[in-house]
């Protein structure tokens, strides 16, 4: 059998998909929250970076996973608050402001990395913590399924759970209802006395929290260190994934799986005689192609009406 096909059909491929899609799933949920409220947050690339960084640094210096988690999330909330303040209060274009914040996060993390680790590349000189992996009883003993679904990092399970949380917040709470209403028709929302800016603010904060979790997973789960610009465009891929999934729970989930599969194939291809550069390109090309197909279909639909 073709060696590539053989490895793709092995359970470890399924395991890898879950591993690879975790940060994209977190970030896509983050993007989706903001998009549903009508103010899309494209600064999750920066949010993930800054949270990945603070998680590593704080856990390394305090030896506390909890503090690492909390500070990572606070960093995400902080960046989202800045975006919200500039967009909602100072009326900055949210796209340009987010571009600035992405730059800021990249520069700021390298800056601090140098201060704390005396290195501009990685934090490997620091002894930071990682989130534990979990074997799921019973499931772990089932062949194939166990190999695919058991033994993941706890944040991977949290990511899967987050889809449910996303669903519940959006469809089962007053806040979710208001977020959707504000995104669809702000006039309708304000005509019944809803403070549109306040709802958008909450949505942006939520997007920051989920982006932060994605970042924490990268530096304290996926790998065990922080590296400069380690998000490598995942925050941008998340925008595409959220778009593709129409910003709704199931769609975002499926789109994240799709990008997870594509990225995993890229990793698997690396074992073949294909230049690694081509493999690294795959997720980005896949994003361009899927976004294009999506746009073609959207514009066709519009023409039909």
């Amino acid at each position, binding site marked *: 059998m073709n060696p590539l096909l053989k490895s793709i059909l092995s359970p470890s491929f399924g395991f890898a998909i879950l591993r690879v899609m975790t940060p994209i799933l977190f970030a896509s949920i983050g993007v989706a929250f903001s998009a549903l409220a009508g103010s899309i947050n494209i600064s999750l690339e920066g949010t993930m970076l800054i949270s990945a960084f603070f998680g590593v640094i704080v856990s390394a210096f305090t030896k506390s996973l909890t503090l690492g988690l909390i500070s990572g999330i606070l960093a995400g909330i902080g960046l989202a608050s800045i975006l919200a303040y500039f967009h909602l209060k100072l009326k900055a274009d949210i796209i340009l402001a987010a571009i600035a914040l992405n730059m800021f996060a990249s520069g700021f993390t390298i800056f601090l990395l140098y201060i704390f680790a005396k290195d501009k590349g990685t934090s490997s000189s620091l002894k930071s913590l990682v989130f534990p992996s979990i074997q799921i009883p019973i499931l772990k003993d089932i062949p194939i399924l166990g190999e695919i679904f058991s033994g993941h990092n706890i944040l991977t399970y949290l990511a899967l759970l987050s889809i449910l949380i996303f669903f519940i917040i959006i469809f089962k709470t007053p806040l979710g*209802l208001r977020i*959707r*209403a504000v995104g*669809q028709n702000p*006039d*309708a*929302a304000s005509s*019944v*006395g809803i403070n549109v800016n306040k709802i958008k603010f909450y949505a942006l904060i939520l997007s920051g929290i989920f982006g932060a979790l994605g970042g924490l997973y990268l530096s304290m789960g996926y790998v065990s260190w922080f590296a400069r610009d380690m998000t490598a465009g995942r925050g941008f891929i998340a925008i595409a994934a959220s778009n593709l999934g129409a910003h709704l729970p199931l769609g975002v989930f499926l789109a994240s799986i799709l990008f997870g599969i594509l990225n995993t194939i890229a990793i698997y291809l690396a074992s073949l005689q294909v230049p690694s550069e081509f493999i690294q390109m795959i997720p980005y090309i896949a994003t361009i192609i899927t976004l294009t197909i999506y746009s073609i279909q959207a514009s066709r639909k519009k023409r039909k009406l």
Partner: protein
Amino acid sequence: MGVILSVKNIVKVYPNGVVANKGVSLDVEEGTIHAIVGENGAGKTTLMKIVFGIEEAQEGQIFFKGKRIKIKNPYDAIKNGIGMVHQHFMLAQDLTVYENLLLGIEPKRGIFLNTKEAIEITKKVSNDYGLSVPFDKKIKDLPIGLRQRVEILKALIRNAELLILDEPTSVLTPQETEVLFNTLKTLKKSGKTIIFISHKLKEVLEIADKVTIMRDGKIVVTKDAKELNEHEIAYLMVGREISFERIPPNDKQGEVIFEAQNISFINEDNVKVLKGVSFKLKSYEILGLCGIEGNGQTELVEILTGLRRPLTGKILLKDKEITNLLPREIREKRVSHIPEDRMKDGVADRATVEENIIVDRYYKKSFSGRLLLKEKEIENHSNELIRKFNILTISSKNPVSSLSGGNIQKVVVARELSSNPLIIIADQPTRGIDVGSEELVHNLLKDARDNGAGIFLVSADLDEILKLSTRILVIYNGEIVKEFINHEGLTGRDLGPYMLGLKKEKDNG
């Protein structure tokens, strides 16, 4: 029965200087259906927006149930028991009926939405008033009539005692209208008060107890509906002492230079807004198209100028077909277009006066070489037009946004009339501009006509139509329902019934 709403001496001046309400006072009795009728721009919608807190009046007071109240925003109005159903529904398309109804006042269980209770409240209110709605369907899947019902329920669920409906029947089919009227009668029986804004006279007389007629930002009269008939209302609405002079038609018999054949169009909401419109335009004439806004005029003009594609039909210019040509190709054939909304289509407001003037001609030999624009020529040309059309601007290099509304319109008119047009499609050419500018635009159109152009004048302003037109077409609901030869003595009273859909007379051309 007592007076529930009383407004006193309301004065509203918009930032652009338009005085929409000139000291309006009105009493509405509790438990009645009170209609307010008037032409576009008579001030009726503005008045209601003030009552509902969307606009703030400069002067005047509002009393509700005998108490003076201050309404700064819709939320204040809702709290006081005033609800409004807007012409454009304030509903979130992708949310369900009950979600829309309870937005902002959601029943909760802990931190969660209490969907069960939400549905129960919805059911209870809809039972109480006999207004059944499919409570778990999304708004976008509902027909217009049901969407409107959701809007009404939205107000009722928030305990509205006074319900304002802004042109509620303009979007409804006759059947839906009938259903709405039954609803309104039920509401009246249960003690609610309803203000009903309309210009469909038959309906007004069918449903209203009292009728208030507004004109020019003032109230003409308030009477019991029983004491009025359609023709009387129409006269009071539009048949004012006409103080304008009709511009006599040009005596030259022109030939047909522009023709629309059987144009139809379906819009994004799947509504057939044009149903086979045909007309012929001759040189040396102004053909007026009058009708109440939203009867297909906007779409027709956009199709004629190449900004939209028709579903069916042909457009001929001197017997050559120009259907589906690009805007520039149509302009090249000497067709000019004064657009309905100058800020949306007519100008780029951050660009300079010059840049706005040359948009249809910058590429021509007189204004550019192979690559470069000829700045000197452009400046001279612009200054010439600024002088000729009396545009008040510091210089031709100032941004259009620094000009007043009337002067912005003059920029548009200057451009469109200075291109030596054979056909001029003028859509609301004097909307929202001062009297002086209006006079100027009218004279310019007349001059263009006398030079042999054919002008297709679309206007919601009857005075303008009567003053300028050689012939008049009346459009109603996407169809041309009547053609008039504009003769001395023709008045708004003659046009009104056709514009309002009371009369129809096809094949009169």
